[in-house]
């Protein structure tokens, strides 16, 4: 069965869901489930928690269909619900031992200069991100970040939580959250550099 057929007529689909149409529920789960699972995986630390978050999210969504407002997009609404479900999982889990990020941070000479000369990147960000293969690459490299760093980056830079909220969910101090975010961004830059470096330089 096709995994993600785009939904042309959301209003009809919502009406079918509200009427309790089984086929409509299945269509929603198949259409949006893959994306929601990808979002949940980026936030939580295990496949089991990601799957649970997706299941919780769908059940919450189905229970509160009455509260869905017609002017919002179904995908946006579901996204918000799965982020909350994933954060809930994150709050209740103990943190795993830290993976080191040192190897992905810049290194410096004794005189304080960067050891590396940074070659400029090919194109401005909007141009780079126009290509689906680059977007997939960036998602892949985010997933490759050490766990405790990936989560901070996802909450702050992608899901748009503020430092205080993120710190609370993660059980970290505000300062530790800021440091982690900075390191995560630096590490992601290191992972992207070999791909985005201009061929000419």
């Amino acid at each position: 069965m096709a995994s993600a057929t785009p939904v042309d007529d959301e209003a009809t689909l919502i009406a079918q869901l509200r009427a309790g149409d089984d086929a409509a529920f299945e269509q929603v789960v198949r259409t949006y489930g893959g994306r929601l699972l990808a979002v949940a995986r980026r936030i939580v630390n295990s496949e089991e928690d990601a799957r649970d978050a997706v299941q919780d999210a769908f059940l919450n969504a189905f229970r509160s269909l009455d509260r869905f407002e017609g002017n919002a997009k179904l995908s946006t609404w579901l996204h918000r619900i799965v982020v909350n479900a994933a954060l809930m999982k994150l709050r209740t889990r103990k943190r795993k031992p830290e993976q080191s990020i040192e190897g992905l941070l810049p290194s410096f000479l004794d005189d304080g200069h960067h050891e590396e000369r940074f070659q400029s990147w090919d194109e401005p960000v909007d141009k780079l991100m126009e290509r689906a293969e680059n977007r997939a690459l960036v998602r892949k490299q985010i997933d490759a970040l050490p766990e405790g760093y990936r989560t901070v980056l996802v909450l702050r830079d992608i899901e748009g939580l503020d430092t205080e909220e993120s710190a609370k969910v993660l059980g970290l101090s505000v300062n530790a959250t800021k440091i982690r975010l900075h390191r995560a961004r630096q590490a992601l830059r290191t992972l992207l550099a070999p791909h985005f470096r201009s061929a000419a330089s």
Partner: protein
Amino acid sequence: MKCRELAEFLSDYVNGELPPESCTHFEFHLSKCTNCHEYLVQYEVTIKAGKIACDEMSDEMPAIPDDLVKAVLAARVKA
């Protein structure tokens, strides 16, 4: 300010949280050091690229596993 310190303060600078005096030192170093300037540019591109890559709704995502679809639908009936 050395490159090492500049890298340290990058996040605060990008977030607009660097105190004015440090900001002056930061920008002075930046005006003279092309390597740090390049690093700052890439740091900012990285932040934006992450956001765009994860926001893009038109991208194909891996399908939801069939057993998870079944679990969700079964849980709905039970609920």
